[in-house]
């Protein structure tokens, strides 16, 4: 199998729930790895993706590092897929969007109950937060969307097998849900 399809995955402002759901394809994973090879992904520990066919992105964009990772995926994946509610509409992290970032940080690091040594972290190693959490399609071009919180294992399976077998991916009614 010299020409395996290369798949990369990552989680931005997400909870890895989508990845867990992906793993729920269970024994079908054995079939899948016959056809695909994982590049950058929590499963492989590869740090940067290169020359991939499919990139699966979980989570929205909440900080500058998310932007860099998303761009790396966009630059290196032929097909980029928004996976799950957070990637598609910001999801639960975006519920902070009606609170100003200043209030959020003050509550977390300055005035919140139980805060000791109040200070807003300023280490240059830390990514800065965006003033609002954004869905990934507002930052890079996205080719497909897999809704769900998380999308079920069947969604991943249907989508990937459609793509691998050269069909236009389509989700039947039973597989479309937003929760």
């Amino acid at each position, binding site marked *: 199998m010299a020409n395996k399809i290369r798949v990369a995955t990552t989680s931005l402002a997400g909870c890895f729930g989508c990845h867990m759901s992906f793993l729920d394809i269970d024994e079908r994973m054995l079939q899948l790895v016959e056809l695909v090879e994982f590049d950058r992904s929590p499963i492989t520990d590869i740090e940067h993706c290169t020359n991939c066919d499919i990139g699966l992105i979980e989570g929205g964009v909440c900080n*500058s590092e998310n*932007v860099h990772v998303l*761009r790396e995926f*966009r*630059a290196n994946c032929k097909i980029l897929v928004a996976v799950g509610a957070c990637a598609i509409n910001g999801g639960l992290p975006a519920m902070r969007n009606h609170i*100003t*970032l*200043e209030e959020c*940080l003050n509550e977390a690091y300055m005035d919140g109950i139980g805060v000791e040594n109040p200070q*807003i*972290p*300023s280490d*240059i190693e*830390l*990514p*800065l*937060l*965006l*003033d*609002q959490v*954004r869905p990934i399609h*507002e*930052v*890079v*071009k996205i080719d497909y969307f897999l809704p769900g919180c998380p999308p079920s294992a069947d969604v991943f399976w249907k989508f990937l097998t459609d793509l691998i077998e050269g069909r236009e991916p389509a989700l039947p009614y039973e597989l479309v849900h937003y929760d």
Partner: protein
Amino acid sequence: MKQFIQCIAENNQHQSTHLLKMLREIQDRYHYIPKDAIEQLSELLNIPRTQIISVVEFYSFFHLSPRGKYELLISDSITDHMLGKKNLLDYLAKILSVTVGEVREDGLVSLGNASCTGMCDQGPAGLVNGYALTRLDQPACDQIAALINQQKPLVEWPSELFQVDDNIYKSGLLLNQPYVQGAALRAMIDRGIKATLAEVDGSGLRGRGGAGFKTATKWKFCSEEPQTERYVVCNADEGEPGTFKDRVLLNSYTDQVFEGMAVCAAIIGARQGFLYLRGEYLHLHDKLERILEQRRQNGLLGTNIMGVGLDFDIEICLGAGAYICGEESALIESLEGKAGIPRNRPPYPVTQGYLGKPTVVNNVETFLAATGIAVNGGDWFASIGTEKSKGTKILSISGDCARPGIYEYPFGITVQTILNDCGAVDVLGIQVGGPSGTFISNQEFERKLAFEDLATGGSFIIFNSSRDILDMVNNFTHFFAHESCGFCTPCRVGTALLKKQLAKIVDGHGSAGDVVALEELCQLVKNHSHCGLGQTAANPILTTLERYPDLYHSRLKEISFEPGFDLDGALATARRLANRDDAGAHLAQTESEHE
């Protein structure tokens, strides 16, 4: 306050149909609508408070929180912008020490924007406590600031500040027509009502608001309704940016307009008429009332008009800052004391209009024409114009020309002739019919004004080659989003999205797919909106995109995608709070900028 509100309610017979009038008085006195006033009014009128709140929050001139004792609004029409509005507004903000959109700390003055105030031939224009200000410049602003700071009552302000000129440069059939008070009614009585309707029919007169429905047909439908309580409404909610001819007609051809309404009333069998005057024309209100009173004195209004047993009177109702009320069913809602939300049609107003009764709504100019036709007969009118567009059209010409003002032409006139007459040179293009109309380029000046070619309600805004078309499109697109009533999804959300998508391209964040996305959105808003506002809101983009695709494409980046928001700007708060400004604390807008 209790007594004041009580008094207002009594003066209006506790009729909720007069809600706008009552709210205008309250706003005038307190510079907002206090909560207690809403509570009291709700009891006195026996309507839920929510009905009052929804009206207050709908109209631009009503506020739930205090505005300044002097409320200063500057017209945001593109023509005002072309005359330096932006600098003037900034200047006023500076000398009055007030932020645009806010009230000064001492509560004396507030400053804001208003949609086109209908003074495009003598801008930059504004409103102070509802009264029109014209030809604003820095010295005038200095003067205004001083008057405000001295707390001089408006009546003591110099009258030049409020001077509104007619600026009639070309008169034709209607504007040259000699007029004797009562002549049209007399002619109608002599000829007979049916015969007069036949003359209106024969004249070929079509509604002058822009849509062009045949006037006689509308009147005939209304007169044939089984309901005998009927109404006639004159639509003087002249809100289309760049239009101001009704202002002039109401100022100098007032009698003819009222007489046209009376002729219509006789034909359709109405005993009550309304003149719905846009709030921005408050300065005309007292004069109009005086003329109505004079007509009553002269037996031309009221009971037993001209001794032939006709009863008809006219009431003036003032709007409160809502473009949508120019749409006839929204106007009727507003007349009934509600938010101006267009109704579902059918039923049309001719069958179910004001209070559910048959109602004819016509434009100011239509009634003026009807007066002329009643006097002179249908042929007089029909002999001029083109096959499908009889008579003349009165135009409001503004923008880049030597003589902005009022021009009356027979239908069928070419654009080039008009440009020559008003002294326009080096013309880039013209917005015909206002933002909801069509933008034509300088390749189209042989086109004709007529329902067959360029239909127009009368707005004619000229742009010379120093102007940026996209500035204009942006101004118009903001206008529609601001004026959308919000009733239907495609217009409420669509006009807000159009604003964002256009800004993305104009601000240079657009990429390959963005013009296509813009056009798709335009079609969606156009094809699915509830009323004319939404159906035309995308016209500024569509008509310019059709003519100047390169203009849009030249703003696009040569990459496949760019965010529609400022990425680095989105980190600004975090940078400030973390006290960082290192390279890692910044983001390039696109990946390519990194390399």
